[in-house]
């Protein structure tokens, strides 16, 4: 079944998309009443498949580097590849991304190198890439705070007459923070071109969605504030791409912000420092493993006759090769000269920091001489 209800919605404000959760690819684990058309060519589907495999491979690499003590901590996005890659693929170059700590796939899609992206986790610096080059803002660890930065940047771009959309990636837990509300309200009031892309992965560390909100949806926050909310199956890369494309178009067209709730699941623990077996059942995780976004796409490609053994193999090999290269890049990261600590605190020089830098310099010299 293919239907097209998205266009039938009045643009502008206050509406949430029917029929609820948008899906485009068949889901093997449950009967899907109706599927909508997606906007991807077969080549694009194949490309997304390759990127998903590659990025999952990267996530596995990061997990193992962390276990080897090469990364301080790792926040896996395993299981969320469709949500992240499908949404990132819909972006235009000029669009801006405001990520949390879990948007590895989005960062890689924006062309940031693995090493640059992982400084923070390796502990070599707090950030590592040029956010302007990739239009990918600094990771924001304080939950929901960056939704305001995304809104501010969108207000600025609109004011400048620039044709771009600013996308805030936040989690289900983040929607409880005051900043999330304020960001959405400002975005609505100023009709700013922002998309709030909420990855509802059902957990905020150990707190399940049911303890986070009494509402059946997060998407309904949008119409309550006078703007458009949409829900999408976050494990369906084609549906995510489609909904995100519509959302971006809506925002780009001057119709104000959009909230996209992508329903997905965090397969791993919150981070490598967490142990999810303490608070959720293996059965629940298993249920979602069966809804794996890569398997879903694979199945679809298969049914189209597009997935030969050759392609599978070359995809895997390409992913392995990229992972090997990434591994080398990451292991070569280093913190550099410790006196850089004083370099970026202010634009101008400060006597107090100069003193402290000189003290450190003297210590470093003394240690060297020992």
């Amino acid at each position, binding site marked *: 079944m293919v239907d097209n209800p998205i266009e039938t919605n009045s643009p502008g404000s206050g509406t949430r998309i029917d029929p609820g959760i948008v899906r485009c690819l068949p889901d093997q684990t449950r009967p899907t009443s109706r599927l909508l058309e997606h906007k991807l060519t077969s080549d694009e589907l194949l490309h997304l498949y390759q990127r998903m495999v590659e990025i999952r491979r990267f996530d596995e690499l990061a997990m193992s580097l962390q276990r080897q003590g090469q990364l301080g901590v790792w926040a896996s996005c395993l299981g969320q590849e469709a949500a992240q890659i499908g949404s990132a693929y819909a972006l235009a170059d000029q669009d801006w991304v405001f990520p949390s700590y879990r948007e590895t796939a989005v960062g890689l899609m924006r062309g940031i190198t693995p090493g640059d992206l992982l400084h923070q986790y390796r502990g070599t610096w*707090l950030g590592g890439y040029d956010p302007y080059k990739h239009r990918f803002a600094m990771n924001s660890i304080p939950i929901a705070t960056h*939704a*305001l930065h995304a809104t*501010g940047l969108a207000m600025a771009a609109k*004011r400048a007459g620039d044709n771009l959309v600013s996308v805030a990636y936040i989690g289900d837990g983040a929607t409880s923070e*005051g900043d999330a509300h304020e960001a959405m309200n400002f975005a609505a009031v100023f009709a700013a071109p922002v998309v709030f892309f909420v990855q509802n992965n059902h957990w905020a560390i150990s707190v399940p969605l049911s303890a986070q909100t009494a509402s059946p949806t997060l998407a309904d926050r949008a119409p309550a504030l006078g703007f458009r909310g949409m829900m999408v199956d976050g494990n369906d890369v084609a549906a995510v791409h489609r909904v995100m494309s519509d959302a971006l178009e809506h925002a780009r067209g001057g119709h104000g912000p959009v909230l996209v709730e992508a329903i997905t699941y965090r397969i791993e623990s919150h981070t490598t420092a967490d142990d999810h077996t303490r608070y959720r059942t293996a059965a629940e995780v298993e249920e979602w493993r069966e809804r794996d976004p890569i398997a879903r796409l694979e199945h679809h490609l298969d049914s189209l006759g597009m997935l030969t053994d050759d392609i599978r193999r070359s995809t895997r090999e390409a992913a392995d090769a990229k992972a090997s290269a990434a591994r080398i890049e990451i292991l070569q990261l280093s913190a550099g000269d410790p006196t850089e600590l004083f370099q970026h605190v202010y634009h101008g020089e400060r*006597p107090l920091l100069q003193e402290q830098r000189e003290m450190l310099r003297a210590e470093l010299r003394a240690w060297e001489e020992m």
Partner: protein
Amino acid sequence: MSGFSMVEALNRALADELAEDDKVLVFGQDVAALGGVFRVTEGLHDRFGDRVFDTPLAESAIVGTAIGMAMYGYRPVVEMQFDGFSYPAFEQIVSHVAKMRNRSRGHISLPMVIRIPFGGGIGSVEHHSESPETYFAHTAGLTVVSPAAADDAYSLLRSSIRSDDPVVFLEPKSRYWHRHEGTLPVTTLNIGVAQVRRPGTTATLIGYGPTVEVCLAAAVAGSDEGWDLEVIDLRSLSPLDTSTLISSVEKTGRAIVVHEAGSFLGMGAEIASQLTEKAFYSLQAPVLRVTGFDIPYPSAQLEAYHLPGVDRVLDAVARSLSY
């Protein structure tokens, strides 16, 4: 009326920056049609249109969206309506405004100004008379300034808007309507440089914002006692102009810091520590502090007991001289 008030000076500084640099934006609660509760932004919306605009009632959002705008190349000047209402924005200020440049290894500059009317003495209700400078000055990554005079307010605000570092700009409410002789524009000292407002030899009085006037009045009164008191206006709390303070104390041997904030971890603590460390042999008495009490800011009819006044400053001078 001749001359100009501090409110007028701030208004003119905003207008001149808005006129000269189209990246400057002014926003906050009630800054447009109303012109701000203290009229600092009066007329700017009429003149500059939507570059001066009102926002919904949410301080975290005001600062948080300013961050996004500054990242995009604008120079936002935002207003927190009162000192006590800057706290909802605290996380944005401490976790992002102060740290973004460092986090991004220098890629991101946030040239933004957070204007905060601060301090007491205007008979207001609770949360309208706070002195939050310690919270900001302790935070690495922020510049914190406060003018004491109308001419300096003009020049400091313009420099703050032009600074590539984020600036917390503390406007002493009780000095808003004080008039200064002369005409605008003026250029005063740079950010980071303190000003000797009155030279002297007996002891050094150190104030900023609302207490500079108190120090000057104490210096006048002190001359009746035969004291020749030096008065320093800090102007900038972070960075702190330690060398001007040291030079003064090397001459006078005595210092008293005066502020409205409580003593415990107030600016006086930092100044006393630095002076003691760096002018140890010059000091003939400990650096003394004359400050607001370490209590929540009191109600209007009691604030006069709380605020550091001329008598307390003179008592402290006497105490200092008794060492």
